[in-house]
């Protein structure tokens, strides 16, 4: 089992080792994002707005964990379609669980690398210390990572089913979630009905929690617990949906035809 999982991880390692563009994707966009928001924040600070503007920097970094995690796994699948390799993988003895595990590992590695880079940059440029959240940070990051996987499962299922037509979702879905997750502002600014939806997303709790830590220095473990619980639900539903879609796709013969599109 580990051998098969490592095979897929290796495949992405080989790929990134050579591809400047792909490595840039892990660094370039996140860094650009951080710089823009970082300087906006510095500017706002000059205007003597309360220190809560630091939230923005935290938000940018944490958002990227979710985003990279979702991207990591959806791009991994799409990549196999692009290069017509999906059939080769599906006729090898790897189970779908092993394959998902492998691409989650790829997503994890990408997220971790990005977070470390952003963490350092934020510290040097804006003296924003990601580690000030203490060990609780792991809970924040972990929950975002998990939610990224769950969202990724749904996106992948749609890509399996609808092929090329669904590829826009890879980048689209995260931005559907972003405004509702209260990434850059507290949930309280959302209209009441949207707040209800916001609290259905694990990510909302993480961003609320982050603002709390930055303001008070206290990590509220209970809301991170809720986030974790919701994550388990979404991961479960996501796997279910993905497996169901895969069954459908085998029925419709899309695995053998997707590579023709």
């Amino acid at each position, binding site marked *: 089992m580990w051998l098969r999982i490592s095979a897929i991880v290796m495949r992405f390692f*080989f790929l990134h080792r050579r591809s400047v563009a792909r490595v840039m994707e892990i660094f370039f966009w996140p860094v650009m994002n951080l710089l823009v928001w970082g300087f906006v924040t510095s500017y706002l600070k000059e205007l003597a707005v309360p220190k809560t503007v630091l939230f923005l920097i935290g938000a940018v970094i944490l958002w990227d964990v979710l985003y990279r995690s979702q991207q990591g796994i959806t791009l991994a699948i799409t990549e196999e379609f692009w290069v017509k390799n999906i059939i080769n993988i599906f*006729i090898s003895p790897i189970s779908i669980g092993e394959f998902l595990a492998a691409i989650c590992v790829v997503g994890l590695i990408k997220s971790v690398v990005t977070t470390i880079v952003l963490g350092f940059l934020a510290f040097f440029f804006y003296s924003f210390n990601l580690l000030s959240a203490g060990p609780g940070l792991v809970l924040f990051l972990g929950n975002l990572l998990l939610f990224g996987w769950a969202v990724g499962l749904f996106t992948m299922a749609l890509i399996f089913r609808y092929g090329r037509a669904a590829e826009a979702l890879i980048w689209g879905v995260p931005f559907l979630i972003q405004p509702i997750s209260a990434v850059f502002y507290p949930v309280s600014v959302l209209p009441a009905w949207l707040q209800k939806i916001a609290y259905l997303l694990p990510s909302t709790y993480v961003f609320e929690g982050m603002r709390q830590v930055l303001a008070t220095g206290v990590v509220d473990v209970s809301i991170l617990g809720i986030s974790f619980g919701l994550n388990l639900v979404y991961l479960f539903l996501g796997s279910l949906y993905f497996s169901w879609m895969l069954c459908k796709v085998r029925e419709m*013969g899309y695995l053998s035809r997707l590579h023709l599109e």
Partner: protein
Amino acid sequence: MHQDSTNTTGTDAITEVCRLTKRFNSLTALDSLSFKVCRGDILGLLGPNGAGKTTAIHCMLGLVTPTSGSIRIMGLDVARHRRNILARVNFSSAYTALPSNLTVRENLIVFARLYGLKSARDRIDTLLELFEIEETNDRLTGSLSSGQLTRLNLCKAFLNDPEILFLDEPTASLDPDIAAKVRERLQELQRQRGLTMIYTSHNMQEVEQMCDRVIFLATGRIVMQGSPAEIIKQSQSRSLEDLFIAIARNGHLYQTVDNHEDEPCGSE
């Protein structure tokens, strides 16, 4: 290596397809197909474009779920034991590719691992040599010619020393010289290891040369089967190619071979 396989049923049929039907919405791609393949045989699936050859192979590999019917490979039901079967068979097609942005060796390393081979260096060397593409070792897969790619696909297909090899138009893009060499290699491997092959091709000379048995499909039904010599004689054609053209143009005139009576399928 796998002479000791005990999973085969009483007969030496390594593949049993029973009333296999596949419908895509209103289109019937396979219509109650039944046939057996014996261990060590080379079976050719022939038929005009759209006859259902690829669909049949994909059903056997579990890529496509049949609408009805059953497939047993090495005594195991494909629907239930897909992964066990997949570990012991392999597939190569002119229509799939290995990641173009990895080198030839990297690709083979990845697939060797997928098939459970931890250190496959020697095996990869041997296979690259066997198919005469050892010089492509460090090159990016995307930079290979289509003939080299075809041979790389075959290397991949032999990584797990399969008992059954499914080939979908394996020689489609090879020049006559290389095509002949590839055929020789495949026949050698078949003789040495008792490899079973199920393959499609539109090259009738190749089929005549390679196949112990052929099955002619037209619109998802078997219209003729037997050894190439047998069916040429039976149909009073001059060659397999003539017969092919006759079937392709007037398939409806050929009675569908119905082998259900004499080969009761195990109840599934």
